[in-house]
């Protein structure tokens, strides 16, 4: 059984090592790029949401390299279409003539499936725990790295240094197999980051990114939004990431706390990360951010539902707001223009408040 998984930004490295440590032969999916998106969109149902199309595009080269099993998470808690991804992906790929199987994991079958894997791959519980622990450490490291890069990009004196450190570290991370190596890599990269010369007095605008988790996290899908904004001189913040998402359900009262924060705008869940988007936007406004960018796949049900509410908050709190829908038709140049205009807007608003 050769396994592949959807490509999801830098997290793919961590998922790869998790599956390898669980005793599978893991074939890395193709990194998301325009060609991948085009190929995926050709096969997928036209009206389905964008991430499914990208996933299919990621799988195709991996299948050609021998992958016969795809792992997909079935989100039975949420109300959105993500829970049908595995059925539709299996159907689409089979109809296109590929003999692949989709293994669906969900919160109900997770434990029994893991036990099956332990049996078939002869993985002891100790090894399992180790693999999971390493996975979370890696995820945490990747998120911290991205945060560092977000901080250094607008401030560095010589352009491109932060990205160079980030890319080098990520490359080394793919070869890291144990905790000792990981902690050494951590030390090394923090050292490298601290050597970057920065302009400490520079006034940097702060922009928050909210929206649907897949598009927010994956630079391949959102045309490296982090980097684009960073080089324009903005400090990017994004609260939503895999760790945050996994933490959302534990402890159980997190759900209640979240609802309490957004209650005056929305009284119920709408699936996906709809409520989180509102909560994050309110939070960014409280912290005095200069603007918020909302990312979503075209027609994403939860995000479309909350968008009028986000626009309302933007009016009430006088917080510049830009919503960008992504799909296979989105062009990088168009996005660049919109971002530049939005940055100009934030700058002039800041000057206006500084003068008055």
């Amino acid at each position, binding site marked *: 059984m050769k396994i592949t998984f959807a490509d999801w930004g830098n997290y793919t490295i961590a998922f790869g090592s998790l599956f390898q440590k669980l005793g599978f032969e893991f074939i890395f999916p193709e990194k998301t790029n325009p060609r991948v998106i085009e190929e995926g969109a050709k096969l997928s149902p036209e*009206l389905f949401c964008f991430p499914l199309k990208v996933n299919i595009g990621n799988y195709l080269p991996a299948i050609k390299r021998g992958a016969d099993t795809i792992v997909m998470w079935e989100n039975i808690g949420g109300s959105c279409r993500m829970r049908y991804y595995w059925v539709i992906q299996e159907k689409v790929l089979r109809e296109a003539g590929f003999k692949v199987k989709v293994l669906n994991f969900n919160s109900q079958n997770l434990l029994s499936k893991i036990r099956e894997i332990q049996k078939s791959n002869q993985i002891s519980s100790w090894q399992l725990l180790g693999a999971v622990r390493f996975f979370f450490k890696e995820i945490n490291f990747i998120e911290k790295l991205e945060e560092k890069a977000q901080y250094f990009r607008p401030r560095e004196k010589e352009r491109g240094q932060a990205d160079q450190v980030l890319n080098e570290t990520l490359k080394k991370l793919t070869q890291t197999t144990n905790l000792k190596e990981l902690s050494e890599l951590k030390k090394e990269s923090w050292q490298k980051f601290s050597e970057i010369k920065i302009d400490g007095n520079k006034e940097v605008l702060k922009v928050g990114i909210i929206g649907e988790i897949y598009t927010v996290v994956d630079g391949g899908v959102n045309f490296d939004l982090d980097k684009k904004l960073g080089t324009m001189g903005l400090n990017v913040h994004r609260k939503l990431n895999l760790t945050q998402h996994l933490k959302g359900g534990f402890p159980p009262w997190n759900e209640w706390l979240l609802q309490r924060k957004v209650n005056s705008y929305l009284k119920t869940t709408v699936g996906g990360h709809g409520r989180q988007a509102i909560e994050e936007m309110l939070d960014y406004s409280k912290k005095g951010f200069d603007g918020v960018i909302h990312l979503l796949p075209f027609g994403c049900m939860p995000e479309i539902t909350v968008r009028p509410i986000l626009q309302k908050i933007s009016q009430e709190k006088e917080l510049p707001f830009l919503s960008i829908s992504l799909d296979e038709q989105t062009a990088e140049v168009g996005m660049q223009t919109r971002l530049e205009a939005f940055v100009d807007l934030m700058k002039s608003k800041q000057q206006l408040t500084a003068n008055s």
Partner: protein
Amino acid sequence: MEKKTIGIPRALFYWKEPFFWPAFFENLGFKILLSPESNREIIEKGVKMADSESCFSIKVLYGHILWLEGKVDFIFIPRLKKNESKLEYCPKFFALPDLFSLIVKTPILSPWIDLGKNSLENTLVKFGKKIGKEKKSVKEAVKSAFLKEKEEKLKIKENYFKKIKSPKRKIIIASHPYNLYDEYVNLRAKKKINDLGGEAIFIDEVPISQPLEDLKNISPKFHWEFGQEMLAQIKNAIKIGISGAIEISAFQCGCDAVLKEFVEKEFKQAKIPFLYLLIDEHTAEAGLQTRLEAFFDTLH
């Protein structure tokens, strides 16, 4: 004291129980103002006001609610969450009262309907307290509204058995009730089919005889209230010998993007000609006519 007026938009959730809600509020002593049947003006208003990426059905609802604004004392927009079998409504239904409270000034009446937790009667008794109605009168109103609903549904059933005996070519139209029954939205597809010499049958007229038995074998397990039901109805419809099938989807309907894959598969397996129609504010009647005529040419 003068009777207060409740406005009910003739769109989306209205078509799920078109007889129950007006009857219920009338029994409670309210005046009812139903927005008119969809027309160009209403749709244009809705399209302008709604989010450009929301589905066509939501845009239609915006139009109807904007029509009601200023004409009534309350607007009725329930928060539909789950049905009796704990299956969810479309997630876009969840937030409707919140979204409309942003744009209308009229107070919104929105009972929280989660029938997996509370029966409809209990929900409405609670809701009745909020609008100052006694438990007893609410219970009676629910009962007689149920009777009304049953009566009307019986008529549909009789009609269905008449239809399937017809010698004409029977065409199934599969869609959500708010696309099927709103004639402006579906561009009078039913009349067009009947004019072309067919007998249009709406999917929701098809009975599911033993719900449990029929629903058991359906895969995948949909978490939406309409998914499994529609697939079971399609299976039953195929048994009566239909000549063709049409699915109508509102543009940007997220649920239909999933459902279509399985609806199409079902008909294709039975070798029944299948036509998929996407509707939105730009769909033109002449275009539909041509496509339907071409579709009829493919039928045997």
